[in-house]
């Protein structure tokens, strides 16, 4: 704990997260060269989400925050982004039905 009550993350964890992020960047590149059909995009997005989650939880300290409001704000961001994408896609995907 630092003076104002913030969690100090060990250097080793930061290095581990950094290494995992770099390794998964390599994996994304490698997997993209193998033909998996539509799975290519899904795998790439899953890896990106995994990497983004690591950055948000560890580098951005969300895992250690005592402020519950911060987490509510983050979930609302994900929720409204999801709303934007799914409703837009629902519109786009069903226009041919008319």
């Amino acid at each position, binding site marked *: 704990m630092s003076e*104002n009550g913030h969690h100090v993350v060990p250097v080793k964890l930061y290095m581990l997260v950094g290494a995992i992020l770099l390794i998964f960047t390599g994996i994304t590149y490698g997997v993209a*060269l193998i033909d998996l059909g539509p799975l290519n995009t899904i795998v790439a997005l899953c890896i990106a989400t995994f990497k983004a989650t690591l950055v*948000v939880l560890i580098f951005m300290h969300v895992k250690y925050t005592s402020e519950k409001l911060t987490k509510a704000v983050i979930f609302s961001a994900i929720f409204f982004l999801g709303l934007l994408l799914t409703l837009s*896609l629902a519109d786009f995907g069903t226009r041919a039905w008319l």
Partner: protein
Amino acid sequence: MSDSHGSAVVSGAHAGIQDAAQRELRHHFVDMQQQSNTASLGMWLFLVTEVMFFGGMFCAYLIYRLMYFKDFAAASQSINVSWGAANTAILLVSSFTMAMAVRCAQLGKQKLLVVFLLFTMLFGAAFLGVKSKEYYDKYKEHHIPGANFNFDDGKLLGHPEYVINQRHAEMFFSIYFAMTGMHALHMIIGLGLMAYLIIASMRGKFDTSYYTPVENIGLYWHFVDVVWIYLFPLLYLISRTKG
């Protein structure tokens, strides 16, 4: 802090003690922790608006990609994926050095803080350097949307017979330049913020009780990194196989 009625602040100033907590605590906060939590929440709210800002562009990308998939794949294949992967690595390393900078600020290691901020700035600048090289390549190939746009040299991997729709490929590049351009603008602003942090920390503005700017600019920097984590596969890796 002439507008403050807080006795602690006044007596601190009288005693000539000027640590960051006494200098920076605003009178409407109970203590530094409350002030810091409030600043952090405000920063997160700003990042939510940024998520929605980039989200609109991701949505446009998604729909056009579904409409013009083959042209988007061909246009994406014309971008050099090695530079993109290298840039992803550079940006991730800069996020690591930024996280280390915040850690140094938490522990009061002022000299190391400056070193890590300098490294973060260096990697950020390297990212922009690679990006401008990529933009210059696209300029030479006439792949920048506008009057001189030309994608006659484009080929869809594994489907040499497919005739690429020039306007659809141009749409990909419009979205590519809008998204990477907006991302690059955020990086440029980030470099400016880094310069501010370096000057402020060399002047002794921060200590273990007060380093909110380091923390919040750190959040901004990581957010810009997260945007790139998605941009890389979506723009560079639409289809890299013959399938």
